[in-house]
């Protein structure tokens, strides 16, 4: 399904053969903003919470609805790039202020912390919800933390409701299935870009209605 109307922007997702540009409408962003407070509430994020989003600008189409959702829910937000060079900034945020959630932690950020010789526990140990992407999830778990799965399945954001659990997309918006072990996404409501079993960079199995990425894969 394709929606007409002015575009919110042109974002980017990781497809199975590389980065893919996707056009995003204002309507779909508005819908996802509306749904985001409910998704965040399932993580216990709401009024009075503080959330640090670790993302790259090209991922704004995926992250912006969550950021606005956090704001609409009465939470405060902070932002850092999700790359190695920003590890010091992420560590600075959690050192200076209490955070209820840090969402979008990447392997690159953890590489940066390793380079700074800062233990993961020092940065994330006091954070109730750490949403870690594939590759980072396993490293945090190995360090004794209890991360939630946080997966960008192409244009769709999947978040685990509890530590160790599968990551769920917004099922009003997306259907997820597999082609082999490749996660494919289909949009269920009109979007500026149509996704019809579109292959993403995520390799996973499906369990409990959600995504469990294959260990060691870093889309």
């Amino acid at each position, binding site marked *: 399904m394709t929606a007409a109307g002015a575009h919110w*922007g042109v974002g980017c997702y990781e497809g199975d053969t590389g980065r893919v540009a996707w056009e995003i409408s204002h309507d779909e962003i508005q819908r996802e903003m509306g749904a985001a407070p409910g998704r965040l509430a399932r993580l216990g994020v709401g009024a009075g919470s503080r959330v640090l989003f670790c993302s790259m*600008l*090209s991922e*704004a189409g995926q992250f912006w609805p969550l950021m606005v959702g956090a*704001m609409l829910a009465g939470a*405060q937000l*902070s932002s850092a*790039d999700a*790359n190695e060079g920003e590890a010091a900034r992420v560590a600075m945020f959690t050192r200076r*202020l209490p955070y209820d959630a840090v969402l979008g932690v990447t392997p690159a950020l953890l590489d940066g912390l390793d380079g700074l010789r800062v233990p993961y526990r020092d940065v994330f140990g006091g954070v109730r919800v750490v949403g870690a992407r594939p590759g980072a999830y396993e490293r945090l778990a190995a360090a004794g933390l209890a991360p939630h799965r946080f997966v960008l399945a192409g244009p769709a954001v999947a978040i685990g409701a509890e530590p160790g659990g599968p990551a769920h997309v917004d099922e009003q918006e997306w259907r997820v299935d597999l082609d082999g072990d490749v996660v494919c996404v289909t949009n269920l409501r009109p979007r500026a870009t149509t996704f019809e079993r579109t292959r993403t960079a995520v390799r996973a199995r499906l369990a409990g209605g959600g995504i469990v990425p294959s260990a060691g894969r870093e889309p």
Partner: protein
Amino acid sequence: MNLPPADSPYFSPAEETMPRERIEELQLELLLEMLPHAYEHAPVIRAAWEAAGVTPRDVRTVDDFRERVPFVDKDALRRFRDERGDPFGGLCAVPPAELTAVNSTSGTTGDPTLVPEQWGAGGRPAVITRDFWGMGVRPGDHVALVLFTFRGPVYGLFQGLGTVPVLFDFDPAEMPRLCELSLRYRPRALYNFGSVLVHAVRDACERRGLDPADVFSSYRAVVYAGEPLGPRARALAQEWGVELFEHTGVGDVTAAFECHAHDGLHFWEDTALVECVEPDGRTPVPDGARGELVATTLFNRVAPLVRYRSDDIVRVTRAPCRCGRTHARMWPIGRKGDEVVVQGRPVLPVDVWGAVESVDACAMGLFQVIRPGPQADRLRLRVGYAPAWDGRLGTVGDEVRAAVEAATGIVPDVELVPDAALLRLGPPHKIPRVAPR
């Protein structure tokens, strides 16, 4: 948003071209509203004023302000933060629970400091909109944004203008995508570019058989920021037909952009009162002379910086610009804390930049001046080189030494490191150009 006619050169004609007397009246009016608020609610400002024995009642004119009000600087904020346990360094002037966001400064000069924000808190003129409108950006245009996220969602400013942002990471690896999507969407402006990205675009075009002039043919403005564009990168961009616009922050208070006249960077004086003072004193320098930029916000009631010494060495003029705007302009020169005096000669990174970049192996212009203190017996440089030159480092070192000597009269000690080692030092749009060791 009420938009002017598309052929208007100004987004807010009345504000952008207001007579100097009106600018100064408005600044005083806004200043006299801001100062009591900052004094009452921003603890670091209150502490500085109490130490100086000044209260807002002592300020009735801009001259009073210049004579009596104390300066603050980043060290004062960090000291307040560390001594008082206030994460905002005493600058947050609203109850922290009322903040929408907490973002951070770039951290180029050390640990980033927190920036408290309250989105939707009125009063801030859409200054970036004025600048991009002046560059020729109009509703419906695509705009390529090549940015980091630590400043928050800057793309909202462009969506507010009715443009469609095409989003890229500030990363050389994104430049092939930038080229491809520039050909597909034909954006009108790019924000923001830098030397490293210029070279990455050249490499991407060479690999893909693209003509950079075609890639950039739709752009009316390419904005660069963070640090100066070296002569080599500038020449490349100009060879591609790109009109470059410099952009810089103004003391963490507002921003400044070049206009089509390319004769200094405008800062909007209805958002900030900017002074230019002797770098080691408090005496104002005349228009056109080098001095330190000192900025006071006229709109930000959440983090009200007052007489903030930026450490930036600039020249400022209040003469009207050829573009018709009446607001002041500045020319960034360097950072006060970056200067090192070697054998009696002051050296800033900008003094060696072109020399380093002129050496083929070092074309990315990545280098650091080693500055253990304000004075040094030797000029020591850490210089990045491209991987292809790995086997010829003796020659590269000789070339760098010769080029820097020709530019400064000083033969430097040169440590060569791979470009990647310096790029990792980010923040992404710039590396620290000075290092203590």
